[in-house]
């Protein structure tokens, strides 16, 4: 078994009186893509957002259990969520570049961490855009608005922005759901190329995407983790009936 990057232990999440996640236990392997699949409303996004404490912003959210990252529980008292988010990056469902130039979008994370050296920032921006497979398309217009890019390019820009600060884990919340098939293929290709450096957790409602892009798959239903294993096994030989029913399209 590979090295484990992140351990989710007995994680339960409540919004008000409603319990959204029920004691989820999940180990995320390092330098792999772990897909979280399941029907809408099953808690995929909530689980993902728990990993970098993005649920903290909701009113009356209550979180029980632990998420162990680097030996420490990120929900332990005294842990600053900001430091967690610096090490665990996120890409959202709809591309959300800032209303700034392409360059400034990628440089944002560096600037807020206090990078001042112009040359170092420039180098890191170029490196990130190259890693996000966007460099060739934008190298001549780094200072034009990010909104001039197509949806697929914007999403790759958001990925470049997220990896510019070199997080250890990259969370992706249905990153291709707003994109056309060609842009989707490019983003999936990019995801595969990123695992050399990063551990990726990918939420998707698209089962083909999980099959194509991930190494491990977790199937979530009604807030419970039903099954977790190598993607190959989950798709060809699921152990649980619910997983099989979902994968064969008996419900969705």
């Amino acid at each position, binding site marked *: 078994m590979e090295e484990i990057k992140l351990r989710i232990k007995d994680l339960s999440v409540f919004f008000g009186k409603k319990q959204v996640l029920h004691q989820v236990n999940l180990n995320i392997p390092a330098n792999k893509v772990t897909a979280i699949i399941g029907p809408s409303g099953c808690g995929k996004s909530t689980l993902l957002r728990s990993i970098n404490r993005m649920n903290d912003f909701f009113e009356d959210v209550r979180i029980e259990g632990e998420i162990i990252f680097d030996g420490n529980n990120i929900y332990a008292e005294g842990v600053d969520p900001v430091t967690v*988010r610096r090490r665990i990056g996120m890409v959202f469902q709809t591309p959300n570049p800032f*209303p700034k130039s392409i360059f400034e979008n990628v440089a944002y994370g560096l600037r807020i961490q206090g990078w001042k050296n112009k040359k170092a920032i420039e180098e890191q921006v170029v490196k990130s855009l190259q890693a996000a497979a966007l460099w060739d398309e934008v190298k001549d217009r780094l200072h034009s608005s990010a909104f001039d890019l197509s949806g697929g390019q914007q999403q790759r820009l958001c990925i470049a*922005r997220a990896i510019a600060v070199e997080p250890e884990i990259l969370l992706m919340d249905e990153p291709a759901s707003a994109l056309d098939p060609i842009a989707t293929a490019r983003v999936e290709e990019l995801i595969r190329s990123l695992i050399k450096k990063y551990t990726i957790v990918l939420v998707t409602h698209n089962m083909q995407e999980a099959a194509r892009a991930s190494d491990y798959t977790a199937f979530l239903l009604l807030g419970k983790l039903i099954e977790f294993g190598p993607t190959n096994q989950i798709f060809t030989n699921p152990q649980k009936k619910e997983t099989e029913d979902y994968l064969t399209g008996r419900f969705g």
Partner: protein
Amino acid sequence: MIEENNLKRRYLAQNIWFTIFWLSMILIAVVLGSILYFIFSRGVKVINWEFLTAAPRRGMTEGGIFPAIVGTLYLVLGSIVVSLPLGVFSAIYLTEYASPRHPALRAIRTAIHCLAGVPSVVFGLFGLAVFVKIFGFGVSVLSGSLTLGIMSLPVVITSVEEALKAVPLSFREASLALGANKWTTIWRVVLPSSLPGILTGLILSIGRVAGETAPIMFTAAVFYTRGLPQSPFDPVMALPYHIYGLITEGTRPDKQIPLAYGTAVVLILLVIAVDFIAIYWRGRARRSRKW
């Protein structure tokens, strides 16, 4: 047949309503046009270089209105210095930090809306009691700016709040997910994105502040000053108050009433000019934002 009648009736109703809308629009254009026409036709002939650059002479029957122009600009600037930071800061608190369900917050919002409805002369009395008397600033630019600034706070707060709320949640999430804290997010993403809306609030408040007479009557303005104010503690002449003075206190209406119209023209042009600067600025801020 019934269908057809029905259709005809609906077209008739539509045409009647369109006509009503159109007439209202025309009526407003006519009213606006006639205001400008009457003011300009009576005022424009007294305007010349001397009128704009000299002080009044011979008991306000001759000379210009330069000190009043300067005084109004001072008061507008002073009130912005008071209301903009205070308004932006409290709007940030109300929209970004305060818990939306807190009952105190609703009370504060209601209070702000009520404040917007308070007659300006009441602000004038408040300024007289607090800034002029208790704080001892006297009748001065400072007292007037504070009074006008407080008067325009509701407009500034409300429009800044709207501007902040219009910034998509996804921008904030993107910034927070990169490890920015709340303040960094507000400073680097939310405020720049809401700049056009903030400027709109500023434009609205400038228009109101420049034209107000009542709040400065007891706090800042006098009919005549020797020269320009030398410090924030000096009283000033101001355009709206100058008009009021010429009309009510004049001894030579034949000479002073045209001067009052001339002053009104200058006041209108001044407000329009300041608005255009802010609108131009807002346009530049908007250009890079399409979402």
